[in-house]
Each structure stands twice: as C-alpha cells, then as structure tokens.
C-alpha cells in the first residue's frame, strides 16, 4: 500500500473505492476525473486514506435510543450556527440608551444596549427573530436531549467499564450545557432574566465566608452593576463553548475508541459490534437526521414564540410579574430554593448562616456529584473488572434501575416545585398545600420509587423467565377431554429466547477473611452494600432448565428471591 506511486484513479467515492484504493490504479487510467485528482492531491499531502480505511466501514449498532445523543450533538451544531449569527448583531453592553426601534410600545423606554440590540434583532432584522428563536429552542432541546441521553446510558449500564471516564465527560457536558443556557438566558438584560440574576446574586451572598465578596466580584460592585452582561457574554460565547467543544470532541473520540455498545441479541456478543457501516448507510441516516433535528427546531421557531423579552421590558429591580419561572433546566434549582421551610437561617458567631440557601445548594451539588460518581460506586460494589459492551435491559439490573428511579423522582420533585405557584393558581389550590405536598414527595418519593421500581423489575424478570421456560400465552383456548380449559402456550424462537436469557446477575460478596486473615470494616461495609444490591435477583434460565422445563407447572417465582446458594434457583419440582 505504500509503494505504488503510479496510481491515478484511486479516490473515487463509490463504496468500492476503499478497496480500489490499494490495487485498482493502473487498471483504469481514465476513471474519476476531478474527484480522483482532488482525492489524490489530498492523499499525497495528508495520507487521509488511512483515516478512510480505519473509519469508513466502521460499524455502528442501530437502536432508537442511541439517537438521543445524536439529537444533543445536532442541536449543539444548530446552536453554534444560530449563535454565531446573533453575535454579529448583539451588543453585550449595559450602557443606558433609549429604545428607538420598530417596536412601538417600547419607544423611548430606557434600557441597556444589550436589551436594545436584542429587540433590534427581533424587530428590525429580517429573520432575526427566527434565528433568535432557533437559538433558544435549540438550547432547550440540547439540554433535554443530553438529559435523556444520560438516562439512557444510566439505565442500560452503558457507563460500566471501560466507559466510566466518558460518563464523567458527558456529565461535565451536561453541567456546561446548563451553564451555557443560564449565561445565554441572562444576556438580553430583560426583566425576567434580570430577576434570575437577582436570585443568583442572593444565592451567592448566602454562601458562608466567600459569598458577599464573590457576588461583589462577579457583578463588578453592587448588584446589578454595569459589568455582568459583558462578563456573561465572554463566558457564553468564548470560554464555555471552547471547553464544551473540547469535551465534546473527547466524548466522541471515546465513542470511537470504545466502539458503541449494543443491546443483547442473536449474533451479538461482548466481543463484536453488529450494525451498519458509517459509509454509506450510517452517514446517510445520521447526516439526514441532523437535518431532521434542525428542521424540527426551525418549525418550532417558526410557530412558537420563546422568551418574548418585549413583553417583559428591560430589567428594573422593582417590578416583577407573578408566575415567574426560569427556563426548564434551571427549574430544579429554583424549586429546591422554594421547598425550604420557613425559618432556616440563624446568626451564630456574629455571622449569618443562611441554611435556607446552604441546604438547597448542598442538595443540588450532592445530586450532581452522585450522578457523576455512580459508575465508580457500582464498580466498587460489584468489583467487576471486565469490559462490558452488551447493554443491560433496565429490568435486569433492578437495584440500579431503582436507584435511577429514585433519583429521577427526587429531581422531578425539585423541578415541580419551581412551578408551585402556577400549580396553585391553575388548580385552585393553596400554595402552602402544594409546597407541603412536594416537600413530602421529595423526601419520601425516592424511597417509594425505589421500592416500587425494584419490585416491578423483579416481576418483569420473572415474567421473562416464565416466557423462556414455558412460552408465551398464544390466546388459543383449548378444552381438554375432562372439561378443563387451558390456554396453549407457545415457545419463543431461538433468537427471542437468546435476547431474554443473555444477561448476568451478580451474587453478593461473601464476607471472607483476606490474605492476612482479617475482616476489615471496609470489607464488611462493602459486603453489606453488595448484599443490598444483589440479594434479590432472578437468574437467567439455563439450558438444562429449558430442556426439563416444558410441562413444569409449579407456581413459578417462589423461592427465586434470596436464592443465595441455589444459583439459578427455581424451586425444585
């Protein structure tokens, strides 16, 4: 491959091109024309054929849930495109001006240059409002897609070795996306975003020791000052995007290095990837999907108003409208502030301790930290050092799924609290009643969700096992000679059966002395956590059971829990 200099037409772009690159040169002296010449030119200077050879036919598995990350990626591209357009018009300045644009109701109103230019984009630049709304909708979709993508990765166990670090990178992308969202939201300097900044200011001031000065530095003096919009702008269009793009690139490099995970299925193993090649099928589908995502965002921006700053007016510390809410992804933070009961603040040692700020901040940071750390926690509990490339069905990892459900319930409670006033007014409830209900939900809900989810998962595993061993209900009722009615069960085919049995369950760690003959408290703790994780489990059906299983009619499921020593553990007939 290195020494044939006399190739002339090796770079045509047909699928056969990759093969042709090695030996077809002299055979077709006139093929290709410009494309071939251009490819050769590039190749002679970049050795890009190596990249094509490596990645052109790389296999990607197919599943709808794998598209969530793609949605995030594509909406980010849309954000970059639309945001770049906006920077050509936006003035990140808080200099006071009097509005003199096309929008009559605001004429003569005193506002900052930032607000004025945002209105200018909306009302004086043709298509400007469209791009502004594309930018905002794309941002909302970006964070939503990241969130769903994270849930997919979590509930299928895709974060397990070797992907723990990529989970952390993805987590950082999530946090960066929220930071991008908030900084962008604050730029127009309208009444709503100004109140958002006011809350951030109050939040920062409540932090012990450093709060006052942090706020003072951030705002360049007293709130609101004249510096914050310019500073957030630098963060929003320079610093945060640069970091985000770097981590995004790293995230994708890791996807290539690790190769994508796949769901269990016939023909799929932990050592292969089954799917379609990048060229041409995946490129067509994924490339087309970018345009579909962009199209959906464009439609939303055409039909649905988002962030009508002209209704809010410029920022002023005095007015505020009822029913103020942040963009959805900040809701959980705003809700956390709302849920604190009265009186959580005291003076001690001549300083003010704002527990009503500190507790929600700790709760939020703790929630995020738990998300970031989860792969390492589960890895420690299982002690599993193997690579995992086959995804779990959520039901087959009941404790993990239940933990996830508890986390989602907690988040949802905080998020719902951000709309507590709207719920109260729309459903004619008292605000106190709504808040107290959500407080109970946030505290008790995760436990309930954990319990219910775990039981549901185990029930589903039992059902799968039942189907594997005894087939599925065919809907055909047969009357036996004795008068008894039975429903005929039909066996699933080999491929479906494989999909149902291709999973593993862990047994809890047995507490045994280590090499020194000791049992340390750490080992004891880990063994206890391991028992909590894996005590309840349903083992996949074994071949032997399949063979003897037909006609087995005992009540299934009994004794399948706590089957410590019986291995796959069905009750013996």
């Amino acid at each position: 491959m290195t020494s044939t200099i006399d190739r002339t037409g090796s770079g045509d772009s047909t699928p056969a091109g990759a093969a042709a690159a090695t030996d077809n040169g002299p055979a077709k002296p006139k093929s290709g024309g410009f494309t071939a010449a251009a490819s050769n030119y590039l190749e002679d200077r970049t050795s890009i054929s190596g990249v094509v050879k490596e990645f052109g036919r790389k296999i990607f598995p197919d599943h709808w849930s794998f598209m969530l990350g793609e949605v995030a990626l594509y909406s980010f591209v849309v954000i970059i495109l639309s945001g770049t357009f906006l920077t050509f018009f936006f003035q990140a300045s808080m200099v006071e001006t009097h509005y003199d644009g096309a929008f009559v109701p605001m004429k003569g109103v005193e506002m900052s240059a930032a607000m004025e230019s945002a209105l200018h984009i909306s009302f004086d630049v043709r298509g400007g409002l469209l791009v502004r709304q594309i930018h905002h909708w794309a941002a909302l979709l970006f964070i939503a897609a990241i969130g769903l993508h994270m849930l997919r990765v979590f509930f299928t166990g895709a974060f397990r070795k070797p992907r723990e670090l990529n989970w952390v990178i993805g987590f950082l992308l999530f946090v960066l996306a929220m930071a991008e969202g908030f900084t962008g939201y604050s730029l127009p300097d309208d009444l709503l975003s100004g109140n958002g900044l006011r809350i951030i200011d109050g939040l920062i001031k409540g932090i012990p020791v450093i709060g006052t000065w942090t706020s003072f530095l951030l705002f360049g003096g007293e709130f609101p000052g004249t510096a914050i919009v310019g500073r957030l702008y630098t963060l929003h269009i320079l610093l945060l995007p640069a970091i985000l793009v770097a981590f995004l690139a790293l995230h994708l490099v890791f996807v290539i290095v690790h190769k994508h995970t796949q769901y269990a299925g016939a023909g799929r193993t932990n050592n292969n990837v089954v799917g379609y090649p990048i060229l041409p099928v995946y490129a067509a589908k994924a490339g087309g999907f970018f345009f579909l995502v962009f199209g959906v965002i464009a439609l939303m921006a055409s039909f649905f108003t988002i962030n009508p700053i002209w209704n809010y007016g410029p920022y002023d510390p005095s007015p505020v409208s009822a029913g103020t809410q942040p963009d959805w992804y900040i809701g959980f933070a705003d809700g956390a502030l709302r849920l604190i009961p009265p009186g959580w603040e005291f003076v001690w040692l001549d300083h003010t301790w704002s527990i009503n700020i500190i507790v929600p901040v700790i709760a939020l940071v703790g929630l995020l930290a738990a998300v970031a750390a989860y792969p390492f926690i589960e890895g420690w509990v299982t002690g599993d050092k193997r690579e995992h490339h086959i995804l779990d069905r959520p039901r087959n990892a009941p404790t993990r799924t239940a933990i996830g459900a508890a986390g989602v319930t907690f988040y949802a409670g905080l998020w719902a609290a951000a709309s507590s006033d709207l719920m109260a007014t729309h459903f004619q409830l008292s605000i106190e009643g709504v808040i107290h209900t959500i407080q109970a939900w946030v505290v008790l809900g995760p436990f309930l969700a954990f319990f219910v989810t775990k039981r549901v998962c185990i029930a589903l595993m039992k059902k799968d096992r039942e189907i594997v061993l005894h087939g599925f209900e065919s809907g055909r009722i047969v009357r036996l000679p004795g008068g008894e009615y039975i429903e005929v069960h039909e066996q699933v085919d080999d491929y479906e059966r494989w999909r149902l049995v291709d999973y593993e369950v862990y047994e809890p760690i047995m507490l045994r002395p280590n090499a020194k003959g000791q049992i340390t408290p750490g080992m004891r703790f880990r063994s206890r956590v391991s028992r909590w994780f894996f005590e309840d489990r349903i083992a996949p059906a074994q071949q032997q059971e399949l063979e003897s299983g037909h006609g087995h009619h005992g009540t299934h499921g009994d004794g399948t829990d706590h089957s410590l020593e019986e291995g796959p553990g069905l009750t013996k007939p």
Partner: protein
Amino acid sequence: MAHDEVSGHDSAASDSSAVETSRAASTGTAVIASDVVNPGEPPHRKRVTDLDPKKAKHAQRTVYTLFYLSIAGSIFALAAYMAFPIEDGDIAAIRLNNLFIGVGSALALFGIGLGAVHWGKALMADKEGIDERHPIRGTQATRDRAVEIFHEADQESGFGRRTLIRNSLIGALVAFPLPGLVLFRGWAPQDEDPVELLSHTMWKKGSRLTLDPSGIPVKASDVTIGSVFHIIPEGLNERHDLLEQKAKAAVLLMRLNPDDLTISPGREDWSYDGIVAYSKICTHVGCPVALYEQQTHHLLCPCHQSTFDVTKECEVIFGPAKRPLPQLPIEVDSEGYLVARSDFNEPVGPSFWERS
C-alpha cells in the same frame, strides 16, 4: 452452572497483581450467566425494495422528490425574505416574516433529512456488518514499551534523580499563576467595601417617598386605606447608579386600619396613621416582593413564595425567607408629604455572611 467463582476477597487481595490480561479480568463477585448457546445472526429478511424493482423505483422517486422539495423550500424561504419585509412597528409583518422564512427553511431541511434517511433505509445496501472488539488496553508489549520510555526519559533528564531541580520547578509552577489570579481582584472596584454598601440605602432623614417610576412625591392624604404604592426615594431617577440604588431602596407603602397593626416597642413613631413602608426587596434572595393581598394584608414574593404579614411588621408566615422585611421609618413633613425619618435600621435584601 456457569459460576465464575472469583469472589470479592480475591479482588481485594489482588490489587497488587499488575499482570492481568483483560480476558481474565476479575468479575469481582460470582456471576450467573445463562449457558444457553447464542443462536447467531437471524436470517436476513429482504426489504420490499430488494424484492420488487417497482418498489425500488418508487423509493428512488420519493428520495429525489424530497430533495427537489428541499430546493423548493429554500427558494420559498428566499422569496419570503423579500415578500414579507418588516414594516416599521407592525407586529403582524414581523410574525409573517418569521413564519414564512421559518417554514421555507424547515421544508428545505426536512427535504434533505427525510430524503437522506429514506435513501439510507430503502435503497442503500441492506447489509449488516460485524466488527470485532479488542480489549481497550494495549498489548503487553506496547505497555512495556511505554513504561520503558518513561523510564528512559527519567534517566536521560534526571527528573527523579535531580530532586533539587525538580522540586524548584514544581514550586515555580505553583507560584507563577498566583499573580494572574490576583489580577481578578480587579473584577470589583478597589475602593469599595461590599459590607458597607450593603448596609445602607439612599434613604435618609427627610427623603420624600415618591412614586415608582415617575418620582412624584406622595402625600399622606393620597394614601387611602387598603391602597398600596410602589415607592422610590426622591432623587433616585437622577442618579447615575439608579439600578443599584433602586435594588436596595425600593419600598412598598400601604395603609391599613391602624387597629390592625401590631407595633413593637421602639417602632411606635415609624408609621403614620396606619401608613407603613416596608422594603420591597425579599430577605430570601432579593426578588421584589410585589404582590399585596389586600384582604389578608399579606405580601407575597412571586419568586419563591415567601409570605410576609404586614399587620405583624412583615414577619415571615410562609416560605423560605427567615427575616421580616425591614421597615422604613416614615413621618409627614410640613407640606403633608410622606418622608423618611431615617435610613432602614438594618441591611435590606438577601442575607449575607457579614450581616449579624
């Protein structure tokens, strides 16, 4: 039974055993997997476009039609740009401009997207491929060589040996960013003290209470029972630091039946005939407490629903705030206008560390 009996105590004890290929990696704890045999790839099912040339032709037609539709969408968007200009101040024109450029662009995007996806799904070769996976860690030879390179580099540079050089370098690297960090002190003015600023507002003895935002002074006789006024201090609108001052000085003025007010000792002369003035800035995180329920005499913050009872000197009756809204002592001047007796007697707005 497919037990891989490599239990937890092993992995705890084998932390030091560096040689461990990924095939033989520890499962940590016993794992139960099924011993049912993987039946292999299911037989390939051909698509209708593979079986029926007519369907393939139809699909081809659909794909290029979509691409042409996309071009039509782009042209439509261009035409809309010109056909729907924004007339000065006409909201309807802005709406049409937004709608039609957007719909045209969306059509252009959907045409490409649907066409490409349909092409990929219906016409491109429907052949699944299989890639082998390899352990993520490199081969032992590569790993050994990497270790060797670090070792050689250490030998050749003397990094581990010449500790004085190494440690002084580490020290220099730690120290050099410090001046850069200190520069960020410039984010806030050098000559201002936040605690001092947060402790005072522009209210002072004799400042007239004026309407927000017009700045018209308010007479006590204008304030009828049950009414509420949004108040700013006299002269605020002329300040260059208007917003910073307003963020501290905004006040709500209400008149209640004097019998409804509970007045604590020392505050007897802070109100005037049932007229009371309280800071509008929430003691939680600083939103304006702008909602007054006239019947219950409650003030509600729309941000986090802290609720203050005006009859009880604005103490918190619900929500995350702790401290009552600070009261502005007021009186009436010789012309009958409401004026402040002094500044607030405590810092207004959100709590901060140095506040006590």
